[in-house]
């Protein structure tokens, strides 16, 4: 168990450092790279806690799909370099929010009895996870998929709407 605990703390340090680096980089591509690193460490953390399925999904969805889209947008729009620095005024509001959440988190950790018990690792096979998710939480899953569908339809509409006038003439010629 002691090796598990050591690994946990090493991973936590990696996650926190990578995320901190991600939000302070001026080069956007470097920020994305640090964020990917943090997702990887999170995936290993999930694996450590006995959820290999979640670990795989973390890598496939966050590191493999969402971050690639980020990279794609950065490369198409600005090429990675941003001149604008982080002004001091920009930092104030996030700093207040961050401090409040940290205070609340500490309060919860000291007050809630649930946090006294350490998280025990438990191996979960993908099939058990799927059955649990779709028998207990089928409604939220369906609602989320509906929400994503609406977002998809909206994106499609916006994309079509803008491209309509100039592209039509181009194709027409």
């Amino acid at each position, binding site marked *: 168990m002691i090796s598990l605990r050591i690994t946990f703390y090493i991973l936590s340090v990696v996650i926190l450092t990578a995320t901190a680096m991600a939000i302070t980089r001026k080069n956007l591509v470097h920020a994305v790279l640090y964020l990917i690193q943090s997702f990887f460490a999170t995936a290993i953390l999930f694996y450590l806690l006995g959820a290999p399925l979640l670990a795989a999904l973390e890598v496939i969805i966050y590191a493999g799909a969402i971050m*690639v889209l980020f*990279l794609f947008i950065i490369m198409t729009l600005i090429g990675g370099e941003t001149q604008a620095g982080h002004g001091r005024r920009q930092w104030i509001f996030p700093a207040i929010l961050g401090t409040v959440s940290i205070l609340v988190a500490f309060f919860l950790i000291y007050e809630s009895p649930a946090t006294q018990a350490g998280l025990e690792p438990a191996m979960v096979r*993908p099939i058990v996870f799927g059955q649990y998710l779709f028998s207990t939480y089928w409604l939220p899953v369906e609602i989320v998929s509906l929400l994503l569908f609406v977002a998809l339809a909206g994106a499609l509409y916006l994309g079509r709407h803008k491209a309509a006038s100039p592209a039509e003439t181009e194709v027409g010629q």
Partner: protein
Amino acid sequence: MWWILGLVLLIMKLIIVISVLFGFAAYMVLVERKLLGRFQIRYGPNRVGPFGLLQPLADGIKLIIKEDFVPRTADRLVFLTAPAVVAAVPLVITAVIPFSDDLTIGGTRIPMVITDLNIGMLFVLALASLAVYGIALGGWASNSKYSLLGAIRGSAQLISYELSMGLSLVPVVMLAGSFSLVDIVNAQERLPFILVQPVSFVIFLISAMAESNRIPFDLPESENELIGGFHTEYSGMRFGLFFVGEYVSMIVLGALTAVFFLGGWRGPILPSLFWFLLKTMLIPLFFIWTRATLPRLRYDQLMHLGWKFLLPVALVNIVVTGGVMLFMGW
């Protein structure tokens, strides 16, 4: 005592798999050049050694002694590490591929797979989705317009085809009832899945071709408009890594096709390792043939094929498979 034996076995398996894979990749280059020559009614390389058999060796030496050049404006660290990502990803995927029947030595069964993960297929998809970083970051870090264009094309292409690739494998998981590649091979004891799921097979094959950046899907590289695309600025062994990575990933995709659709190492009479290698080689040879036959797609055609054809067909296929399984009470 037993864990040391296990460790030794594991390291032996790793060494054998990696060296065989690199050897096959080197000779796959030669096979491609030879076959392309024949397809175009010329000889292909035939000067180094008998029938040009030592050509891969000569190519390797050439790549190693060439100057490893880094452009002055490049993002140095990212530029230097990007080729490694491309080469490493397919190598790591082989960890979950079962390449033969269990070997029995002195009453102990040795499984012929490096590790049998219960999320094996998701592991494969997760790694396949990371291969794009090598291309995207390599192209971006070069700080050249051609490379950046190649990188943008590459990331858009790979993310589109990854989706239909993943969806084409869902019916396989449904039929096998497991993500583990060992279980998937075992589920094809009577019937390889290509006979049950021909539509899935075709979608997987096309997506695999797009994932490996081969003609007709080689838009990220396209020599005649982007002069090599994402690897324009690379030279020497770093270019070699991109090159070898492409061939290793072709072979790994062949092995995956064999495992998912052709029954893995299962086959009559001959030893199972032979069947596995034979099935694995079918796909790369098919890719080479396609390269000699088809012209390159246009960019919008590529996107339309992925999103408007392969993806809906894959979704319908999943629904139909589920319906039939429900009806037959699988």
